[in-house]
């Protein structure tokens, strides 16, 4: 079983479009959406939710004003500015460290477990999908990513799947780090802009940091040939494979509006392009 992660560093470069297309043309796989903050894959894969679970993670402090004698100790020790002058807790700022509850002599503070999201196992036209939704303004997206990854891996082992195809989160922070562990190959999709190149370097750095095999896809490569050349030179120097270049096409935007993977929707050379990339990966 091969676990393939699609990431982009910079958002909006076509990560989900590529993932959905791989999902549509590969055989015998489980799909995962690790962009738990702002999941989009479901808009193309139209999952039918079969199982739904609560994701509990972390705690939040709650003051019971009846017991509180307003001594101010809790506010003094809290390092996250989460306790107001009225000794009430701002649940958004509270990081759940529990220090306030420890120091409160009147036992006025309890730590309440957070319901920070939900995760799902679903059926799609193209196979099973494991995905999640992080609650609004919740923390621990890294843990939720680890959770959906683990569930997908177990499912793939049970069903003897050949691939786990993972739509990664944006950025290089905690959710990306959680999505990189145990991956067989990271496909980094970028675009020929200065910020695309800048973020590509950061994404490569993080993948190399975890010693993961990398393949680069340049999306909309014909929009700025100079920058595409720069990316190619950079990859040559660092000995990283470019596994595909996809031209700009309005058909791709249309495929999103229609909710169909680009590889099936686009009638032009885009589809063949994506198929060739998948051939190299598998």
């Amino acid at each position: 079983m091969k676990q393939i992660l699609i990431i982009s560093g910079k958002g909006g470069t076509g990560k989900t479009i590529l993932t959905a297309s791989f999902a549509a043309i590969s055989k015998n796989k489980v799909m995962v959406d690790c962009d738990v903050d702002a999941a989009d894959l479901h808009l193309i894969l139209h999952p039918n939710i079969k199982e739904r679970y609560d994701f509990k993670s972390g705690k939040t402090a709650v003051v019971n004003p009846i017991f509180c004698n307003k001594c101010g100790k809790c506010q003094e020790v809290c390092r996250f500015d989460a306790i107001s002058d009225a000794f009430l807790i701002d649940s958004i700022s509270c990081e759940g460290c529990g220090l306030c509850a420890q120091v409160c002599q009147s036992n006025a503070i309890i730590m309440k477990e957070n319901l920070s999201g939900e995760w799902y196992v679903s059926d799609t036209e193209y196979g099973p999908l494991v995905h999640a939704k992080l609650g609004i303004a919740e923390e621990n997206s890294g843990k939720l990513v680890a959770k959906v990854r683990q569930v997908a891996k177990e499912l793939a082992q049970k069903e003897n799947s050949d691939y786990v195809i993972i739509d990664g989160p944006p950025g290089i922070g905690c959710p990306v780090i959680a999505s990189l562990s145990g991956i067989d190959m990271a496909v980094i999709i970028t675009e020929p802009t200065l910020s695309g190149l800048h973020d590509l370097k950061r994404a490569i750095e993080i993948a190399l940091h975890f010693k993961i095999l990398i393949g680069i896809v340049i999306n909309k490569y014909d929009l700025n040939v100079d920058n595409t050349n720069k990316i190619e030179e950079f990859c040559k120097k660092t000995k990283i494979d470019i596994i595909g270049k996809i031209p700009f096409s309005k058909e791709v935007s249309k495929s999103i509006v229609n909710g169909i993977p680009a590889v099936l929707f686009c009638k032009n050379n885009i589809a063949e392009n994506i198929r060739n990339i998948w051939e190299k990966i598998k």
Partner: protein
Amino acid sequence: MIISVASGKGGTGKTTVAVNLALSLENVQLLDCDVEEPNAHLFIKPEIKEKISAFTTIPQVDETICTYCGKCQKVCAYNALAVIPSSKKKGTVLIFPHLCHGCGACYLLCPQKAIKEIKREIGIIESGTVANLQFVHGILNVGEVMSPPLIRQVKKHINNTKTVIIDAPPGTSCPVIAAIKNTDFCILVTEPTPFGLNDLILTVEVVRKLNIPFGIIINRSDIGDNKTEVYCRENNIPILMRIPFSEDIARLYSQGIPVVNENEEYKKEFIQMFESIRHPIKRRMSDIMNII
């Protein structure tokens, strides 16, 4: 006034808006809080004058005093400490820096006062200027998970004598919240596609929860569909500006050139938008005009 610029989905033009708004106004400070992928400097091209490291704290145990009582492990909510008690003579306390939130619980509650706090670098903060624009950004170290503390430290550089513009990270979780918290207004940048709208709705929930006044900029407003417009109308969300797709903007963007430097018309539009944010009454008027 502090204005944050955010978007649920990356690549919608958030940085473009932050940069062009900053360059259109006078007396501005621009903070790039997208510390995982800071990009604004590519367009602003500031002269960096100061570079400092940003730290969080982690505990350090003095094992000559420690009795391996296990209290620190018990109070740590993030499993960042493990106490291995001494069976014969020597035990040990293991510390996992990447899990530590620097809350100080172990340090304050150790009965032997055996813990002190030491600094751990999580990234750097650079500041500089270009013409009379002040610029600050944070760069998270690669492999580092704690972006909110770095974002909070970038925000300590806020200069209240200026109009402050904050480029926030994408998403809806802790890093965005750290960036947009305590700002006076939040501009949400979106594009009129199903992905854009899906993520916009999530981001609107975040700013509502934080009680920050907000408005929307629709970028590439002529691609995709009109569902974003309908959503804004139905939810009484002001649309501050619509930026149609233009090959010109895309080309300038790919070269790292802000469009307002080349096109006075856009500059006027950004100034107008800023005025409408500053004077909400005018904003309401222009909303009414929009609906009519």
